[in-house]
């Protein structure tokens, strides 16, 4: 290994994921609060890892200040309130810099959905230039998907095949909010009511409630804990700026790179491949974020699993299903497993990646999985976060 930081051992390789936990996930969790779910998740993740709650020296994610006080942990390293994979990266950074040794990432969502007559409040854009046109998240992602369909001939059947695949993964998962609600064919997806053309109801993510947590520690320490450690081989994020405040145009470009907003995540993926020395061919399972069916096709192209415009054919060839080359979103994702607010379901992509690499999945276990690529975000949101996990310490 040379002096080039991009090709030498990456600092993330000093970090391991030692514990994971999902609370119960449900459409509604009456009696639970954000704090009650976070407390349960912290205890659950620490028990999974085999570490004492009292040994936590940093909390990252949602509710860290309240947890620090209520669990009697102070002083801990004052940390951040990022969401999803960036929160996990914050934890990794605290470990690589030596600021903390046992870091817990937390997320929960409850009590956010009270009006069944309208879309979820956080999905409605408030920016003055877009607020009056009745958009919500499905509409913004549809504007991206439509452009891909125009350019490459991507079809509703290809989108529906993605949705059926992911929903069937959730159908057989006993912990999924929509467990047992399938199985689905692509025709079932296409027969569901149209929401924001080209997205039918079953092309879209669900909304639910629940929490989760994850314990990260030094890789050398993780080897002595309760679970087989899962290592971070690489992680990076792309952003095109504030989402839902401008036209989500496929062609939006900054001057720093020629990647258009439609392929947000491509630069981050290239960074992850450099950090890890791996590529798409080395990936065994793809725990991709699935806010809308099209996003799987788009991410397969953005991350280099196929060429531009080839994602639709790839998903029709069986690559993303059980036994396929790159099984996707194997717990049912946001379409079926859970979508609890603004961070939980993003952390859960990485939790599922860890379960796959432990060989611990009760359903849809990818035999012998050693490398998992997890993602958050999507084109309509103008960001994409990636985290590559492996069973071997690099």
């Amino acid at each position, binding site marked *: 290994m040379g002096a080039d930081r991009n090709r030498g051992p990456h600092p993330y390789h000093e970090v391991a994921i030692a514990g994971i936990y999902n609370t119960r996930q449900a459409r509604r969790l009456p009696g639970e609060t954000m704090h009650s779910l976070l407390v349960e998740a912290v205890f659950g993740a620490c028990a999974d890892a085999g570490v004492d709650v009292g040994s936590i020296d940093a909390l990252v994610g949602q509710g860290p200040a309240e947890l620090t006080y209520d669990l009697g942990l102070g002083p801990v390293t004052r940390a951040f309130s990022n969401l999803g994979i960036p929160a996990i990266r914050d934890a990794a950074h605290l470990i690589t810099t030596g600021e903390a040794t046992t870091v817990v990432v937390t997320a929960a969502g409850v009590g956010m959905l009270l009006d069944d007559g309208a879309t979820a409040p956080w999905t409605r854009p408030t920016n003055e230039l877009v*607020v009056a046109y009745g958009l919500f998240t499905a509409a913004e992602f549809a*504007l991206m998907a439509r452009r891909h369909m125009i350019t490459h001939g991507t079809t509703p059947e290809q989108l529906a095949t993605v949705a059926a695949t992911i929903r069937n993964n959730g159908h057989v998962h006993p912990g999924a909010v929509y467990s047992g609600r399938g199985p689905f064919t692509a025709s079932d997806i296409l027969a569901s009511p149209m929401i924001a053309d080209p997205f039918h109801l079953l092309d879209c993510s669900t909304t639910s409630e629940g929490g989760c947590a994850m314990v990260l520690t030094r890789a050398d320490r993780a080897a002595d804990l309760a679970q087989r450690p899962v290592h971070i081989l690489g992680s990076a994020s792309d952003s095109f700026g504030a989402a839902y405040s401008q036209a989500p145009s496929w062609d939006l470009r900054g001057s720093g790179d020629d990647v258009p907003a439609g392929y947000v995540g491509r630069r981050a993926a290239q960074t992850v491949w450099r950090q890890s020395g791996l590529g798409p061919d080395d990936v065994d399972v793809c725990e991709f974020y699935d806010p809308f069916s099209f996003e799987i096709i788009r991410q397969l192209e953005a991350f280099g699993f196929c060429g531009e415009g080839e994602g639709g054919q790839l998903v029709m060839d069986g690559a993303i299903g059980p036994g396929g080359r790159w099984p996707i979103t194997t717990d049912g994702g946001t379409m079926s497993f859970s979508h609890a607010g603004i961070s939980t379901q993003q952390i859960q992509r990485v939790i599922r990646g860890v379960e796959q690499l432990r060989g611990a999945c009760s359903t849809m276990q990818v035999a012998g999985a050693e490398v998992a690529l997890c993602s958050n975000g999507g084109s309509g949101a103008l960001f994409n976060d990636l985290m590559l996990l492996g069973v071997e310490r690099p």
Partner: protein
Amino acid sequence: MSRLEPRLLGIPVPRIGPESVPYWEGTRLGELRFQRCDACGAANFGPGLVCRKCRSRDLTWTRSAGRGEVFSWTVIWRPQTPAFEVPYAPAIVRLDEGYDLLTALVGLDHAEISDGLRVCVEFHEISPEITLPFFAPDPEHR
């Protein structure tokens, strides 16, 4: 066939920000305005302090001809809130001056929308302060 109409009643009203005052002044007067960079000539939208192409801070508000083409669209059948009667059709219109605007398409059936359809602006007042731009098929290209 039913023509898409603008949704104007009970919808959220934009709150004018410090950098977009000339934009909303324009729509009240029946003008669509954007910022042109004095240094590189690029069209900039939404309103800002810096040219997104060359980072010059010399931008001049300019009147758009209000004509362009449909770059992308969606047809909504499940409304954001009940105020938005379905169907309605949010769209990205690429103006001839070279910038993209998020708007909604009106004056045609949703099945008539197509990539590159020529459209022109039409204005609808929703409050004393706010007049919104919508886009309808351009009669010069029918």
